């Protein structure tokens, strides 16, 4: 019997649709933030940075406010991953709690970075040195701390490898993919140190590789989770059907 | 009701402790006026009284009197270390 409409709209699928909608909104904000296309150069002088904020003040505020509103909306999405990790037949659920803890801190960092940009854009007539400082802090907080995401992906990969279920929750390649994304993001920590070259915060590795890798990870996990939820619903229906057969056999 | 010795012991200790406190307080009060000059003998007296009071509390109230030897030594060590260090540093000041 096909699941009725109400059964399809369970917590997990709602969280996924939340992530899809707000992911799209965040992508829009990401594209519309003048500081990302092309990414601001860390070598710019204080006056150039102040002029940039003066010139693009409206768009900076608009995009960053959207970021502020929607950035934390991805938390339910991460919690669906935590729930699925708890369903895995790993010896214990310690990795799920590690993932949860890392996700909580990771999202906080994103919110803090966003606030630095908004403060910088609040009074463009401020002393250029102060605007440059706020801009530096914003970029360093946004790009450099990859540790939380690396920890999340490592926990996820370990859980996938240790999943002893006959039919694992996430296929094996999800583990490899998580590790690959984590490795792609590690060098971005250099953005807090270098002002020029690929490792600078506008460089190929720290900006483009890091953000595209993380974007790809979110998109891929969206589809992987969707299939995992479908399969879970299938399992529940089979179990329910089995129960019914058993009840009839007893009668 | 005949006072059970254990409770009587606690009352004696309490009277002794209170008495010592009043003595220490009196000592400090009497020398109230020239408080500005540090006086060696008075400090030593006060510290001695405090040590006796502390040991009474540890041994009688905390019942370390009947506790295993390692606990007795540990509490005594603490008291000696604290009081001697303070006295030496006072002498040094």
């Amino acid at each position: 019997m096909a699941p009725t409409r109400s059964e399809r709209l369970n917590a997990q699928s709602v969280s996924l649709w939340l992530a899809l909608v707000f992911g799209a909104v965040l992508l829009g904000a990401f594209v519309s933030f003048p500081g990302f296309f092309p990414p601001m150069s860390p070598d710019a002088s204080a006056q150039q940075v102040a002029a940039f904020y003066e010139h693009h003040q409206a768009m900076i505020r608009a995009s960053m406010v959207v970021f502020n509103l929607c950035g934390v909306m991805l938390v339910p999405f991460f919690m669906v991953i935590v729930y699925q990790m708890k369903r895995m037949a790993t010896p214990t659920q310690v990795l799920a709690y590690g993932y949860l803890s890392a996700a909580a801190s990771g999202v906080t960092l994103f919110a803090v970075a966003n606030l630095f940009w908004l403060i910088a854009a609040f009074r463009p007539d401020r002393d250029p040195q102060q605007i440059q400082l706020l801009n530096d802090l914003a970029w360093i907080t946004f790009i450099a701390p990859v540790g939380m995401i690396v920890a999340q992906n490592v926990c996820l990969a370990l859980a996938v490898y240790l999943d002893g279920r006959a039919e694992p929750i996430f296929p094996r390649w999800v583990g490899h993919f998580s590790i690959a994304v984590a490795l792609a993001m590690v060098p971005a920590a250099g953005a807090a140190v270098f002002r020029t070259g690929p490792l600078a915060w506008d460089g190929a590795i720290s900006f483009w590789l890091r953000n595209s890798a993380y974007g790809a990870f979110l998109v891929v996990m969206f589809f992987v989770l969707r299939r995992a939820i479908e399969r879970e619903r299938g399992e529940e229906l089979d179990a329910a059907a089995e129960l019914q057969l058993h009840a009839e056999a007893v009668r | 009701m005949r006072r059970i010795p254990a409770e009587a012991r606690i009352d004696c200790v309490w009277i002794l402790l209170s008495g010592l406190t009043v003595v220490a307080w009196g000592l400090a009060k009497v020398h109230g006026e020239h408080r500005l000059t540090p006086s060696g003998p008075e400090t030593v007296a006060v510290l001695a009284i405090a040590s006796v009071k502390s040991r009474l509390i540890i041994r009688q109230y905390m019942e370390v009197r009947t506790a295993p030897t390692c606990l007795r030594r540990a509490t005594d060590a603490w008291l000696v270390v604290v009081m001697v260090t303070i006295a030496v540093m006072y002498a040094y000041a």
Partner: protein
Amino acid sequence: MTGATAALPARVSARDDQRSPKLDLWICWWVFPAFYTLFGLIFVVLTRVMPPPRPGVGVDQINSFFHAHGTTIKLGFALLMVFIGLASVTNGLVAFQMKRMSVKPIFTYAYIATLAVGAVPGALFAAFAFLAAVFRPDRDPHLVALLYDVGLLTFVGSLGCFTTNYLVLALAIALDKNKVFPMWMAYITFWQIATELLAAPVFVFQKGAFAWNGAISFYEGTVIFVVFLGCLIVLLRRAIQQQPMDELVQD
């Protein structure tokens, strides 16, 4: 044991036995000493945040401090950017052990939440402030002095999240009937709250025993934290060894 993990039949599968049991627990346990040794290396040797430099110094001394240790600060905190996630893995391990206790998981969720809060202002703000301070040699000295205060006051001064964290852990251990951790560990955990209280005056004093590098506000708290950490690592090892293979952990 109260409650059983969900989807019990799917947990035990054929491939479970030949792999070494509790592999994920032991991985997380080894992360504990590894991460805190690295934490000590970064904060003590490389970036000299522990023991903290003197608070009561002028702008030029602060700038010469950053000038002298610029490279090691950059190296140290770049490393922290990558490995800060391991702190979340250690939180996950302790949170899992709290789940094994007989108390309801309220304390576990509180433990994860408080440490997720504590990670950002407690450690990462110091990293961001110091990194920004050494990011540009031509920054205004007064702003560098501002970053010096931001970094050290947030590192030594963030008390509330850790106090709540210690309180919640102490209560969980005290009320636990399964005796995952011995009772004296509850007292040692609770004992640290007094040191947090005594760190409160760091916001008032610039010199003396209660400044942020004071004998009481900093050194005593650090010594007691190291004692607590040592006890925790040893007790976690014992708890993992003693956990029966088929123990049902509440979900």
